[in-house]
Every structure is written in structure tokens, then in C-alpha cells.
């Protein structure tokens, strides 16, 4: 099986996932870390949505009164992605609130710096 050429959506989405993953691991800056996380999530959603697409068919909304499964694309991935987007935005908001609270106390967005300061505070 050799579908890399036709599966260009999936290929792009796994590359995006990798970049997001790298951002999450590498970036010291918390805001960029969380942007990376968002990229990672949207990459998975792109992957799912691409899996639901069927060439030559239309969006899963009743058009011209045609009730026939071979006329519409697969609605399942769209539903899953819709749920996923909500989860992603909630987590983004939560993590940004956390960032603000951390900044208020430590005065920096650098995770290493924050870790160091908190260790110093802990004493010894």
C-alpha cells in the first residue's frame, strides 16, 4: 500500500502534530508552549476531518431533499471534532489563567526560571 501521495492531508496533519509536540517539549516560554499544544490538538482534528471526507460528496446537511448515504460525506468525524474543539478551547483558557497567576508571583514566563525560583523559595 502506498498512499502517502494521496493522503497529503494526513501527512500535513502529522507534521503539524510533530511541530506542536516539539513546541510543547522545547519551548521555555509558557505562552508558546500552549500555542504548541493548540497546534497539536488542531492537527489531530485536521486528521480526523480528513478521514471523514469522501471525494465528490457534499456536506452532511440535507440538500435538495436527497436522503441517500452515497450523497453526503461521513458526519461522524465532524461531530467528534466539534466536541474536541470545545475541549481544546477550555483547556487553553484554563492554561492561560494559570500562566497569569504564575506571572503574578514569579514575574516571568520562562518555565525553567519559574522552576528555579520555586526551588529557591522552597529553601535549603
Amino acid at each position, binding site marked *: 500500500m502506498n498512499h502517502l501521495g494521496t493522503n497529503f492531508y494526513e501527512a500535513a496533519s502529522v507534521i503539524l502534530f510533530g511541530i506542536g509536540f516539539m513546541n510543547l517539549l522545547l519551548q521555555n516560554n509558557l505562552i508558546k508552549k500552549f*500555542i504548541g499544544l493548540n497546534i497539536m490538538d*488542531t492537527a489531530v482534528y*485536521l486528521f480526523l*476531518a480528513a478521514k471523514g471526507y469522501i471525494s465528490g460528496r457534499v456536506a452532511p446537511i440535507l440538500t435538495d431533499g436527497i436522503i441517500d448515504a452515497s450523497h453526503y460525506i461521513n458526519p461522524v468525524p465532524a461531530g467528534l471534532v466539534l466536541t474536541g474543539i470545545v475541549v481544546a478551547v477550555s483547556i487553553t483558557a484554563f492554561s492561560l489563567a494559570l500562566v497569569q497567576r504564575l506571572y503574578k508571583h514569579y514575574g516571568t514566563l520562562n518555565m525553567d526560571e519559574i522552576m528555579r525560583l520555586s526551588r529557591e523559595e522552597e529553601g535549603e
Partner: protein
Amino acid sequence: MSTGIQVTLLLFLIACAIGVSFTRNLFIAVIIFMGYSSIMAVIWLFLESPDLAITQAAVGAGVDSVLFFLTLKKVHALKGTREG
């Protein structure tokens, strides 16, 4: 033709993602991320998922960016508000 446009959009998406990783300025990073979300919305239109496109446009490019900008303002990373 349509495939060409889609591939270009995907390449643009990847370029945006790499751009976010390499910009030093947080403000620019968030702007790029906003662009990334908008392109994603367009791509979902190509994939025949208008539900997702409308949601992504409202959330990714709208609410998410507002939240990011407010955070940047709070952490004094925006020029013109309070120097950080």
C-alpha cells in the same frame, strides 16, 4: 486546480506552525497563530465541514486570540500598554 489550492493551504499551515516556533516576539507569535486558525477554517470548508469551519472561525480566530492577547497584556508583553 482545487488540489493545488489545498496543498498550498496545507503548506501555509505548516509554515505558520514553524513560524510560531521561531519567532521571539510573543505578539507576532499570537498573530501567526490567529492566521493559522483562519486557514484551518478555510481548509475545513474544503473538506465539506461547514459546522467545523464556523466553529473554528469563531473560536480559533476569535475567542482564543482574545484570550491570548489579554494574557499578553496582563504579563506586560504588549508594546504600548505597559512596558514589560
